């Protein structure tokens, strides 16, 4: 067995075992499964959220965009920072509602706040539809990484299959807590890997970051300012995309749910303050993409630039380490995504929609079965329909961002009404789908998801306001 294979398999097996043992003494019920008993302190929340945010997208998509598109990739540094700033205000309020009413999921919030089960089912379905491409992205990313890191010894489908089995194992035994513990291994390894490559390659090939950027500005003038090498991603697109994805960030069902697992509103607020520091590793990933543009130009798949350059530069065992980090980096978010998608289907589609009297045990049992089903669906998609990574993520964002008006107005504005929220949500999603299908994304330079969100927000505001005014004038 070559050292790279040993390191990759050793790591993912160790990580999975850690995840399995994390839940060994916890009696599994819905509360522990989804929100870890609402007991996570600042450190575990930090690890869980970093685990969810720093995904294979950080490795592959961000370097791929720096490589193929240039400056538009910088939106990735910006949107997270906007999201953490908003979360400082939104998540503590959300946590209090969650604690008070024992909420587990995002649709639970909609059902509680708006008193409508139908709206809950609708939100659950949009959530699941948005999660699946995100999950597929993790799995296909994992396939790429392990395939390159093992120098072709492990095929991408085999790598995806192995991680599928291990991830299901620790999700099924330990729920969200398993994911948080695997995130410990993942965060340490990923930070090391990104630091080694991100600091190393500009130094090795150019003698420093400044020299590397000067070489790019001479060879590819325009690459380092908007719109870079992507003419349809000019500054208006970047601005609208940052706003869309910044607002949408915590609207992902798994990010939303992670907020509930904190032990207090104070924990979640403090966490928001330190979150922007998470953005620094992304800079290092960009440096790899930019260096790759000069050193190995003309890659058919830009998303492979990080691994391809690492492979060209470093010895086999170190590439194996990077591959292992990449594999665990895919497994943590996969676990959380599949856990929440399954719980949405079991709790908020099956129980809420069809069988309100189903017992908690039955819902949990169904969630576990659904975990395997959804993972398998994503596995099939990853094997047969691989797409360019970031595009998939942006489609998912277009969907979940449409929850923003319902959540934020629901928390802070008494007048927000269920019909207005339902109409806004349907119109927002409809607008996005229509613009994308008719190839109008970007629409006058704006991100289509942003246009959908604007339509959605206006409808919720006008209809909620109009309804109460109408009621007042009747009295």
């Amino acid at each position, binding site marked *: 067995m070559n050292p790279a294979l040993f390191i990759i398999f050793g790591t993912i097996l160790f990580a999975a075992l850690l995840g399995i043992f994390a839940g060994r003494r916890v009696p599994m019920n819905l509360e522990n499964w989804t929100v870890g008993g609402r007991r996570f302190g600042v450190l575990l929340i930090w690890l869980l959220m970093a685990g969810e945010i720093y995904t294979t997208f950080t490795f592959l998509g961000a370097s791929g965009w720096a490589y193929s598109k240039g400056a538009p990739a910088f939106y990735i540094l*910006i949107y997270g920072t*906007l999201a953490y700033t908003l979360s400082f205000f939104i998540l503590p309020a959300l946590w209090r509602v969650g604690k008070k009413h024992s909420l587990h999921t995002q649709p639970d919030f909609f059902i509680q706040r708006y008193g409508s089960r139908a709206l809950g089912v609708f939100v659950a379905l949009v959530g699941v539809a948005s999660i699946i491409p995100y999950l597929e992205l993790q799995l296909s990313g994992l396939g790429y990484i392990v395939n390159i890191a093992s120098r072709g010894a492990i095929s991408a489908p085999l790598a995806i299959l192995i991680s599928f089995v291990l991830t299901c194992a620790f999700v099924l035994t330990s729920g969200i807590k398993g994911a948080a513990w695997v995130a410990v291994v993942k965060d340490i390894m990923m930070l090391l890997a990104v630091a080694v490559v991100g600091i190393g390659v500009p130094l090795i090939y150019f003698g420093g970051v400044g*020299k590397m950027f000067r070489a790019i500005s001479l060879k590819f003038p325009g690459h380092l300012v908007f719109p870079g090498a992507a003419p349809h991603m000019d*500054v208006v697109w970047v601005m609208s995309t940052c*706003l869309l994805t910044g607002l949408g960030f915590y609207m992902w069902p798994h990010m939303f749910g992670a907020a509930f697992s904190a032990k*207090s509103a104070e924990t979640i607020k403090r966490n928001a303050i330190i979150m922007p520091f998470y953005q620094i590793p992304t800079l290092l990933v960009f440096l790899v993409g930019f260096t790759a543009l000069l050193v190995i130009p003309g890659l058919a798949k830009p998303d492979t630039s990080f691994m391809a350059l690492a492979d060209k530069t470093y010895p086999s065992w170190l590439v194996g380490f990077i591959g292992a980090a990449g594999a665990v980096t895919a497994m943590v978010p996969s676990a959380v995504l599949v856990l929440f998608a399954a719980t949405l289907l079991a709790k908020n589609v099956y129980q809420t929609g069809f069988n309100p009297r189903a017992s908690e045990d039955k819902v949990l049992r169904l969630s576990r079965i659904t975990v395997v089903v959804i993972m398998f669906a994503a596995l099939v998609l990853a094997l047969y329909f691989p797409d360019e990574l970031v595009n998939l993520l942006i489609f998912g964002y277009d969907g979940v961002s449409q929850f923003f008006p319902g959540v934020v107005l629901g928390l802070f504005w008494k007048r927000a009404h269920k019909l207005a929220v339902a109409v806004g949500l349907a119109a927002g999603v409809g607008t996005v789908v229509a613009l994308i299908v008719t190839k109008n994304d970007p629409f006058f330079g704006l991100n289509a998801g942003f246009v959908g969100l604007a339509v959605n927000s206006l409808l919720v505001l006008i209809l909620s306001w109009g309804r109460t005014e109408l009621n007042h004038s009747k009295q």
Partner: protein
Amino acid sequence: MHKGTRLALMLAAVPFVTLVFALPLVNRLKPMILGLPFLLFWILVWVALTPLILYLAYRLEKKYNPPDDEAER
């Protein structure tokens, strides 16, 4: 709205102004600072300052908001 919340919201507007609305003004390569293109340097500065801004917002909320707001924490 409590005074602390109002001040915190005003501070929170800073990253939105600098990292979104100011982008058309800073979309330039030169001057390169610390070896970084000006656009990237600008973004990094404000990303790095955001935790400080949020910490200040946190202190102001603690200072000016009535403590019963904190009761549930």
